[in-house]
């Protein structure tokens, strides 16, 4: 059962490697959005330092959402999604594999890139650590919850915009605890509470979200 899911993740990663453009577009979107804010807000370091966690987290969230429609759309178009639904594995597990592959291709690169961009905002080293840790814990939840929206809007016209309309409200707790964790570290309050709640959200996003996603996929395949 599990090696089938791992083979699915391997297949998706190989596909991801073959289509570099998809990964690159997510990363460049993240870089561009983050670099826009100083131009809008102004160059004063202390102001940027204060806004940095929120900006970086919102940009990461939007970048993840950018790559969500493709999560199931390609498989739906070429018929592999039908085969996935008809495989002997429970569909929820298959979705978990797709979500993991999506996180490896979008969430993880964003997390590794964030500290580099944090330097643009003159963040202290401990803030950068907190930022990376919170993104590492939080981005899987973004993929897991986002998969629900991707499945619901599969093959629906105006899917991309609709997806963000459905998913952004559900992303708010992750954003609050994620950005809050960085801010708590910077102000010395300590981010233990934020990170543990973020971890809880991620567990929910990764272990509970696949079941509504699977149900939505079954409906889309009808």
């Amino acid at each position, binding site marked *: 059962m599990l090696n089938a899911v791992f083979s699915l993740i391997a297949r998706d990663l190989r*596909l991801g490697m073959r289509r570099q453009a998809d990964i690159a577009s997510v990363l460049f979107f993240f870089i561009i959005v983050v670099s826009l804010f100083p131009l809008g807000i102004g160059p004063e370091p202390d102001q940027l330092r204060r806004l940095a966690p929120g900006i970086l987290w919102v940009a990461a969230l939007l970048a993840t959402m950018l790559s969500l429609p493709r999560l199931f759309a390609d498989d739906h178009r*070429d*018929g*592999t999604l*039908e085969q996935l639904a*008809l*495989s002997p594995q429970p569909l929820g597990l298959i979705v978990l594999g797709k979500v993991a592959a999506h996180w490896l291709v979008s969430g993880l690169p964003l997390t590794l890139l964030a500290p580099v961009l944090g330097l643009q905002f003159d963040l202290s080293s401990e803030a950068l650590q907190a930022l990376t840790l919170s993104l590492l814990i939080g981005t899987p939840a973004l993929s897991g919850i986002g998969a629900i929206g991707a499945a619901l809007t599969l093959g629906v016209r105006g899917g991309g915009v609709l997806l963000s309309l459905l998913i952004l409200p559900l992303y708010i707790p992750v954003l609050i605890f994620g950005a809050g964790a960085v801010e708590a570290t910077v102000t010395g309050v300590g981010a233990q509470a934020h990170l543990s709640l973020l971890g809880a959200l991620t567990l929910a996003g990764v272990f509970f979200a696949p079941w509504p996603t699977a149900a939505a996929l079954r409906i889309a395949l*009808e």
Partner: protein
Amino acid sequence: MLVASHLECVRGERSLFRNLAFRLDEGELLYLQGRNGSGKTSLLRMLCGLLPPAAGEIRWKGETIGRLGEDYRRELCFLGHLNAIKEELTPLENLRASAKLADTPLDEDLALEALETLGLAGRADLACRYLSQGQKRRVALARLVHERKSLWLLDEPFVALDTAAVELVAGLIGAHLQRGGLAVLTTHQPVNIPAGTVRQLVLGSC
């Protein structure tokens, strides 16, 4: 043994067929005939559990396929209009990936052998994007060479194939039926399948 009773399919507000029933035993082939839009594909999708019927039920070995769930899907091989292959992957990678997902053991040599029987020997390591429509269909059909699932649901398997390939696939289906497998087939070209009893089901009339 596959039994369907009182099946009804509704598309939009129109019901394509109503009170459809049939019974299929080991080693038997069911031909689905009917003009376009008569619900052949919908019936196939119902049989594999993708499309829930508006009315009626489908039983596999006495149990409804809804309750069987994964156990039913373990014995099912479905081939739709779409080839279900990834354009960026090579035929070999496609074959092995779908085999792993379907829990059918398929190592490198068996996969290459399957591709060779389908006349794709030279193209095993070429991304499917560069293959012709007919060749892509063969990659999709290559699964059937080593497929040991007992129920085959094939939607227009012969489309975009030349006569040699059609005979080859017909042979594969015949072998499957000889092994006691069941098959439900929709096709427009008249093809003789070397198999035991062949049942006919014409849609669109009732």
